């Protein structure tokens, strides 16, 4: 191989790469009809009005683009383009003006319009509640019977459609749960609202003095506020997680038997197909290498931190990253039989093995609903027995139902979770599910994965200061031509601009070995010591530290040692978790030695190497011994363990499956996110308990009053609103002491965008 040959190959690779990219855009786009297609891009670095203009102008100017529209809040761009011909070079144009972008899967994003539905219901409930309340106030102030009846009729007319429209969210869920023989919070809510409305309608028809239309609709209004905020917060977190770059291949460039190339989506790739895989792409399916030499990064799949070399005949697992050279591979399994699919099956198995968690609100309502309903029935029987007046007994029994309708109880949990989710969001932690917060507060053991979780899966130069700066500068200049993680680490370690010597005529990459640069008449090599150095010069290799040598005509100029970089805040995080009384363990798929080193530095027990199935089994066995586990992991091999654990967290750099399976995703680099999340979860648990006590206390006072028949619509309205407000105010206490901490937060802020835009096989 001559010096020039690889550069020709490189040009080829670039065209292939571009081709694959534009095919990928086509694959991910949505057909709008009339020859238009829509593509959504996630651009994490959009941050101001200037960005909007710059991006829209650049994209609008591209041929074929009909309209480009930036969404600043979601940090996304929606582009509509004419479907004739190839897709416009969207990603390249954006990267030219300095924005790293990746495709956003709007297609798989099943349009969740729950939030819109809730907001509409909330608006209608607000309108109805305010108007009915106005009419009710005049009734309470002592309107004449004729006016009162008129106002009752008007309230009924407003309340009927409003209760039907806003109430169906609760009625539907209550009916579902009753059909399965269970109760949830929506059952007492629905019963209370329906009885209040029915009784009021009956009273209106009979010109009675008391109607509870305002109570019924205000109750719905308050509960909808809580539910809407809850959904909005979770949606925001989900969108943020979805906006992260995809780390699995969407498809692959297939070499057909007749020599033509075609880009096929992942699920159409079958065993035996020949795939052209460029450097920087992820392996789409399990396969065998036919031709080519490269380094493979397995960290996301198996947890091994050191890249493996691959040559003809090597077997590759789906999801690994091809680092340095183009490979021709032949698929050995379809996507549905690949490693990833196997992980998903194991996740399902782990899911079914895990005991189902009942949310606090559901457990509370399971105790609460029967008590309230029995009390109402007993009141009815008691009044009939005491007075014989069935009508009056019925009214009082329904008043009991209305006053105990769990408004405060229904808000007690969601309001705390909304405030908690918001706080976590500000700290860069995305909470995807409110139940996870409750589970997180219960954990007693925290299990960490190593590669990618405790470490960044990114090598870093050791002892950079003792290395000759000139040698480092030269190494960085050569390394800047490669995408290999070691090369990037060298470039990063070299402070100041990389200046390439003018006499450097060519740089070529030998996958699996290193880089070779011709400077004038001398040949410099940067790479494996055995390859770069002439015989007998190989330095003492340190186990589990990658060693790289820079040589001039075979003579050693410098050696560089690299280790996997530790995430910031690891020691502090482990210490903080210990303060909470949590046991910490490391569970890794990497080789024993590096794991032991790290674990003993942290002073925690470790298990390695562990297969994905054993990880899940290990978690299950800890759970079986009665300790609840928080699993923190990022790799594909951690996914089953994430599901098996009581609660789970994943960093933003995790494999897609893991990110989707985890309850919480943290976007910042620092591992301190883990103790922060535990703190918030524990505070939230305390406030939820307080709220439940307040709500039950309110009922303990209100119920005797109602049973004795002293409740009027006015008392019901005041008591219910007051209890709800107290609960909401208590939930807001979670923000106490928060403002002082904000300064610290902003220092470590928003690493996510820069860090993770780099992925997606640039």
């Amino acid at each position, binding site marked *: 191989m001559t010096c020039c040959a690889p550069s020709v190959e490189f040009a080829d690779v670039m065209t292939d790469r571009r081709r694959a990219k534009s095919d990928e855009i086509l694959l991910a786009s949505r057909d709008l009809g009339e020859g238009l297609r829509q593509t959504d891009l996630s651009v994490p670095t959009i941050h101001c*009005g200037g960005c909007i*203009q710059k991006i829209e102008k650049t994209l609008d100017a591209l041929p074929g683009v009909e309209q480009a*529209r930036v*969404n600043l809040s979601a940090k996304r761009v929606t582009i509509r383009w004419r479907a004739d011909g190839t897709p416009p070079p969207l990603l390249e144009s954006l990267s030219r003006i300095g924005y790293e972008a990746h495709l956003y899967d709007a297609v798989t994003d099943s349009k969740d319009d729950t939030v819109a539905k809730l*907001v*509409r219901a909330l608006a209608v409930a607000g309108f109805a509640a*305010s108007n009915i309340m*106005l009419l009710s106030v005049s009734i309470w102030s002592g309107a004449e019977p004729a006016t009162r009846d008129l106002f009752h009729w008007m309230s009924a007319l407003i309340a009927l459609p409003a209760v039907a429209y806003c109430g169906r969210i609760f009625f539907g869920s209550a009916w579902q749960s009753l059909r399965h023989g269970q109760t949830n919070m929506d059952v007492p809510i629905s019963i209370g609202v329906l009885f209040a409305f029915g009784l009021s309608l009956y009273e209106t028809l009979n010109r009675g003095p008391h109607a509870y239309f305002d109570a019924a609709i205000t109750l719905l209004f308050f509960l909808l506020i809580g539910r809407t905020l809850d959904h909005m917060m979770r949606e925001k977190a989900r969108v943020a997680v979805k906006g992260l770059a995809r780390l699995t291949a969407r498809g692959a460039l297939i070499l057909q038997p007749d020599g033509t190339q075609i880009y096929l989506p992942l699920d159409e790739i079958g065993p035996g197909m020949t795939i052209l895989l460029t450097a920087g792409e992820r392996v789409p399916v399990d396969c065998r290498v036919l031709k080519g030499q490269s380094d493979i990064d397995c960290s996301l799949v198996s947890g091994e931190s050191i890249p493996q070399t691959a040559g003809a005949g090597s077997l590759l697992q789906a999801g690994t990253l091809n680092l340095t050279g183009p490979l021709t591979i032949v698929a050995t399994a379809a996507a549905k039989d690949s490693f990833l699919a196997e992980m998903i099956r194991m996740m399902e198995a782990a899911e079914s093995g895990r005991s189902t968690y009942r949310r606090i609100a559901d457990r509370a309502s399971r105790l609460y609903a029967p008590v309230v309903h029995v009390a109402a029935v007993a009141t009815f029987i008691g009044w009939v027995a005491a007075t014989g007046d069935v009508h009056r007994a019925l009214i009082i029994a329904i008043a009991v139902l209305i006053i105990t309708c769990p408004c405060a109880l229904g808000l007690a949990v969601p309001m705390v979770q909304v405030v908690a989710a918001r706080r976590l969001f500000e700290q860069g932690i995305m909470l995807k599910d409110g139940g996870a917060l409750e589970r997180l507060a219960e954990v007693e053991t925290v299990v960490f994965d190593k590669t990618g979780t405790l470490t960044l899966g990114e090598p870093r130069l050791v002892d950079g200061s003792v290395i000759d700066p000139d040698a480092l500068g030269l190494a960085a200049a050569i390394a800047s031509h490669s995408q290999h993680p070691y090369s990037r680490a060298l470039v990063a370690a070299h402070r100041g601009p990389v200046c390439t010597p003018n006499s450097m005529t060519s740089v070529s990459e030998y996958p699996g070995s290193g880089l070779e640069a011709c400077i004038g008449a001398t040949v410099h090599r940067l790479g494996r010591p055995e390859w770069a150095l002439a015989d007998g010069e190989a330095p003492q290799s340190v186990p589990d530290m990658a060693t790289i040598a820079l040589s001039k005509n075979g003579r050693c100029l410098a050696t560089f040692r690299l280790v996997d970089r530790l995430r910031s805040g690891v020691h502090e995080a482990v210490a903080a978790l210990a303060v909470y009384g949590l046991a910490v363990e490391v569970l890794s798929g990497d080789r024993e030695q590096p794991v032991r080193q790290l674990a003993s530095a942290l002073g925690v027990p470790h298990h390695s190497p562990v297969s994905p199935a054993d990880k899940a089994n290990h978690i299950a066995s800890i759970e079986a011994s009665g300790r609840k586990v928080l699993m923190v992991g990022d790799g594909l091999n951690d996914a089953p363990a994430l599901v098996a654990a009581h609660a789970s967290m994943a960093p933003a750099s995790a494999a897609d499956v893991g990110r989707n399976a985890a309850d919480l995703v943290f976007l910042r680099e620092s591992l301190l996110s883990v103790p922060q999340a535990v703190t918030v979860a524990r505070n939230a648990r305390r406030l939820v308990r307080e709220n439940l006590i307040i709500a039950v206390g309110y009922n303990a006072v209100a119920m005797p009053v109602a049973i004795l028949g002293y409740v009027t619509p006015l008392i019901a309205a005041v008591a219910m609103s007051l209890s709800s407000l107290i609960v909401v105010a208590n939930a807001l206490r979670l923000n106490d002491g928060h403002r002082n901490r904000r300064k610290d937060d902003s220092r470590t802020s928003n690493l996510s965008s820069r860090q993770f835009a780099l992925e997606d096989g640039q």
Partner: protein
Amino acid sequence: MTDFFYLIPLALVLGAAGLAAFLWSLKSGQYEDLEGAAERILSNEDDKPIVNGRQPNSSPETGDKSAKN
């Protein structure tokens, strides 16, 4: 007292108008990008939002665009 009853339907109509306006603004995607809307007020260009699933009337759009370029 009864002389002021005409105020009640008036209040209801005004309230309903407000509700309708809110529902319309929700449907036309005005809450999709609140931060973006705050920034766009500073730009001179007249732009239209992309509403999901619906095609903005494309003829004035393309005319606008060719004028811009």
